[in-house]
């Protein structure tokens, strides 16, 4: 079936079977390879994307469920100023090791800081509680997100 939706700011149309998951549609049909498959059970967060602005596990969303909606992946936030702050903070704080959780982690961190630009450490922890990182033990990721929050230009 045909699925029409907005991907990273542009309209796209994909011919997909209804039992295709969003993560597969994004990776296989639209080359959004930043979206990673870590478990396909909604338990690891590696496939996190924004659906109408909210973080969701794209392995649990069916392709036709995004009809008429907006999907954002890391590719679509390349020039976003908040994401640029986050990226730099991740790099400088040593928050990146193997990098496989990183795209999903950045999406969650982005949604958190977009809605709450000056979170407490606990709020940051809660914001990324759905993203498992097995390399860093989270410490440097938490530091990076708090650092990014400080970089956000005051309004």
């Amino acid at each position, binding site marked *: *079936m045909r699925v029409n939706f907005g991907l990273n700011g542009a309209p796209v149309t994909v011919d997909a*079977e*209804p*039992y*295709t*998951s969003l993560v597969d549609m994004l990776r296989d049909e639209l080359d959004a390879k930043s979206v990673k*498959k870590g478990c*396909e*059970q*909604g*338990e690891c*967060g590696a496939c*996190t994307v924004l*659906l109408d602005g*909210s*973080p*969701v*596990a794209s*392995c*649990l*969303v*069916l392709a*036709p*469920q995004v*009809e008429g909606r907006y999907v954002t992946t890391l590719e679509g936030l390349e020039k976003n100023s908040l994401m640029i702050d986050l990226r730099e903070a991740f790099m400088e704080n040593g928050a990146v090791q193997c990098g496989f959780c990183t795209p999903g982690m950045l999406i*969650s961190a982005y*949604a958190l800081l977009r809605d709450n630009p000056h979170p407490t450490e606990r709020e940051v*922890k*809660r*914001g990324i*509680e*759905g*993203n498992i990182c097995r390399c860093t033990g989270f410490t440097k990721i938490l530091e990076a997100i708090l650092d990014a929050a400080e970089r956000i230009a005051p309004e």
Partner: protein
Amino acid sequence: MKPLPKFKYHAPSTVEEALYLLATLDEAEPVAGGTDLVPLMRDAACSPSNLVDLNNVAELNYVREDSGYICIGATATHAQVASSPIAAKAPALVDAVSGIGSPQVRNRATIAGNLCNASPAADSAPPLLVHEAEVAIRSLKGTRIIPLEELFAGPKLNTLEPDELVTEVRLPAPPEGAGSSFKRIGRRKAFTLSVVSAAAYVELSGGEITEARLAFGSVAETPIRTRAVEELLRGKALTGGLLDKAAESVKAEVSPITDVRGTAEYRRDMCGVLLRRALAEAAERAR
């Protein structure tokens, strides 16, 4: 990786249409967030021929107050309920749904779905049980309203007919002097299934408990109320001695099992601990 079983997909835009599809299609399952259903399908534990997606049914997406009830539409997500000032009147529910899964889950998963999945570990169930929630069930034949408890038939089994759809979960807006609380124990601090969960609801008048309701998750085949203990509490002053007695008595009213998430003995003992903590907090909130 593992493929999803093949199915036909339907996206009705009205409840009537959804009900018609459920009544006429073979092996049809309604789906909203899909956070329970999709993993089950991937594990081949559930292979419906037809999926009826409720996300486009605008009339099912609400949290509102109506005739003294807090009404939660079938597609209201945990995130919606967690941030709703109306739902805030039932603090146990807000506590529970704020901690279910992760932001990614809460943005998709619905209260109605959590309940229909009928897991004994469903965290939304104990708070709704103590708030005496009811479930509105519709089919082409009409609407019936049942107490939430009657939705659960056993582990992962609900009492719905194949053509029926839960359209709303509603609970009486608590009166002044009421308080509720939800407590859970998991294997880690977030994004994990409960090993045991407990909710308490009390109404206080003076120092006296005029109403008490308790419910537990993961300690029986379904989420359960513990009515004998509730009876023990009613009409009494909330003293340490009474709490001790209640915490001890509750262990006789639950029937947990041992599995990968915990032992029966532990769960039984934790009912007592969580009962104390939930009751204390509920009473605090009632004051």
